């Protein structure tokens, strides 16, 4: 689908937190470099593809999604699926991190496609009025930019249609997430990480409604029958951060064998909320400014503590992702405070979501074992 849009010169690459409903409503194709990063990681060729970026001078200390992206544009023939199809515009939203600005600038240099940045400065807790005003003007400019670049218009009708579809999918997705409050949890971490793909990359399309309806039907059934995602649920934990795509099954299934399930995590729960009301753009400016990663550490801590309480969790695992400074840098502090406030123990494990060269199984094993021993 992305290939077709690229051939028709109407493909955009977007960041995962971008209001994708707008380009979709303007009949543009969307591809997700971050999701491509996850795929490359899962195929266990993260180090190689990152290496293509490192060969042209990008430091190994940079975001591994960015390195994979830059590396696959540099060397598509040696990259999975030959990389993503060529974009005609790059849409970056910095509500997930400040890195996207620089990453997309680099891609722009490589591909010649122009960048549009939707700036949503981080907020402490509540979104100030002048912040919403500012973001709204950015949304207006986005529509203008897409209009000029692709010679397309956005009708209110189509925007409403897409917003409704997006809300519907998100609604179904959220129901499945919330159902994990039950014990046994119908879904485990890896299930959610894989199932979230469509709602991240194809929000606003009709295609995914069936998928999430199907997911919800399955989840509903499991809850009714008391079927858990894992055989014998003994311990329920919270997961924080992006997962190690290269070892996702090994890690979560390994723990599942020991009765450990993850009914909730901060990553998959980030795609929720609805575009609604009379003023859709206002809703966009609110929803996309208030995502988990765009709030202060206090707000993140609150969210984690609430999830531990609401989902009845026994502890937590924080994955300290070396190449993701935005998500990882507060963890040493939040770990202490979450335990203080909830009384449950947690552990920080180190690695990277894509670059398996910095993932040390032995160290992770030791730390997780130590956590599990606390429950005996």
């Amino acid at each position, binding site marked *: 689908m992305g290939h077709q849009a690229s051939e028709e010169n109407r493909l955009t690459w977007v960041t995962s937190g971008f209001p994708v409903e707008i380009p979709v409503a303007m009949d543009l194709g969307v591809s997700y470099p971050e999701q491509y990063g996850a795929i490359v990681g899962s195929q266990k060729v993260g180090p190689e593809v990152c290496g293509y970026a490192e060969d042209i001078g990008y430091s190994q200390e940079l975001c591994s999604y960015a390195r994979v992206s830059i590396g696959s544009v540099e060397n598509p023939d040696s990259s999975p699926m030959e990389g993503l199809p060529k974009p005609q515009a790059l849409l970056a939203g910095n509500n997930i991190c400040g890195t996207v600005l620089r990453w997309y600038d680099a891609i722009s240099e490589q591909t010649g496609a122009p960048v549009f940045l939707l700036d949503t400065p981080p907020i402490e807790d509540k979104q100030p009025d002048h912040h919403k005003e500012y973001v709204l003007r950015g949304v207006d400019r986005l529509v203008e930019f897409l209009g000029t670049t692709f010679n397309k218009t956005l009708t209110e009708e189509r925007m409403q249609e897409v917003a409704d579809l997006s809300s519907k999918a998100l609604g179904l997705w959220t129901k499945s997430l919330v159902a994990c409050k039950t014990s046994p949890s119908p879904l485990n971490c890896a299930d959610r990480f894989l199932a979230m793909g469509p709602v991240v990359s194809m929000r606003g399309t009709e295609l995914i409604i069936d998928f999430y309806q199907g997911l919800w039907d399955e989840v509903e059934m499991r809850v009714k029958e008391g079927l858990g995602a894992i055989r014998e649920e003994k311990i329920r934990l919270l997961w924080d951060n992006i997962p190690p795509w290269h070892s996702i099954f090994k890690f979560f299934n390994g723990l599942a064998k020991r009765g450990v399930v993850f009914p909730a995590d901060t990553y998959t729960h980030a795609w929720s909320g609805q575009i609604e009301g009379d003023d859709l753009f206002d809703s966009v400016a609110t929803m996309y400014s208030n995502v988990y990663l765009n709030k202060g550490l206090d707000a993140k801590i609150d969210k984690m503590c609430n999830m531990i309480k609401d989902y009845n969790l026994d502890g937590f695992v924080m994955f300290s992702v070396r190449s993701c400074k935005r998500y990882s840098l507060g963890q040493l502090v939040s770990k202490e405070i979450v335990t203080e406030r909830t009384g449950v123990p947690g552990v920080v494990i180190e690695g990277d979501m894509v670059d398996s*060269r910095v993932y*040390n199984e032995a*160290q992770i094993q030791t730390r997780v074992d130590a956590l599990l021993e606390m429950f005996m």
Partner: protein
Amino acid sequence: MSKFGIGIDIGSTTAKGLLIDSDMKVCAKHIMLTGAAASQAIDKILEELESQSGLQLDNITIISTGYGRARVENAEKSVTEITCHSRGVHSLNPEIRLLIDVGGQDSKVIRIGKKGRPDDFELNDKCSAGTGRFLEVMARVLGITIDELGPLALQSDSPSSISSTCTVFAESEVIGHIGAGAKPDDIAAGIHESMSTKIVALAKRVKVVPPVCVTGGVALNPAFRHYLSKHLGTNLWIPEEPQLTGALGAAVIALNGKS
């Protein structure tokens, strides 16, 4: 009347001195451990060069290089070991385009340009597993000497996978392999494979242009040469006295002045 040049290379472990004439013939040379006092090593080297050549050193230009290059008082100037290795290798083999030097503590890659001068170069990052130290650590883990490590690795044709960029983590990967019952020769091979991929990554930043020369203590390791050659996709040329290429380059610069 013949002209002469002296090159003095004060490394952190060994100190080297070379006296050459304008025909590039070596009239005197000396290698010794640097020891605690670089100045003493420098004096000893000059003594040796004088007595071996039978020449008065007063009118001969001295260029110094290496870690302790600023300590050579009689030197007309100091030049970095990168430039000196490049000039030195070029004078031994003008065809060489890429020089890879792997020492105990650091690694460098130099793309040699016109007249043997470095066109581009890279040093290893502060903490990377691409130096002699990596091999030392791993030999210890396997319970063998560093000299035994290379030949052992050559006995394997299925190297164990060692992917960590950090020596400490790589060490625990090796321990993991030992625990899982992997054969020592496969582990040794994996160690060399891992190291050579790090060096190749460093080399790519400078662009790999053959022919390639390798110098430094690790150049003597046959397994390292095997895997490096394999991953670079080209043969390797090793000079006869790889330790002296820095001093040689310095002597060449001394001979030729600033041109």
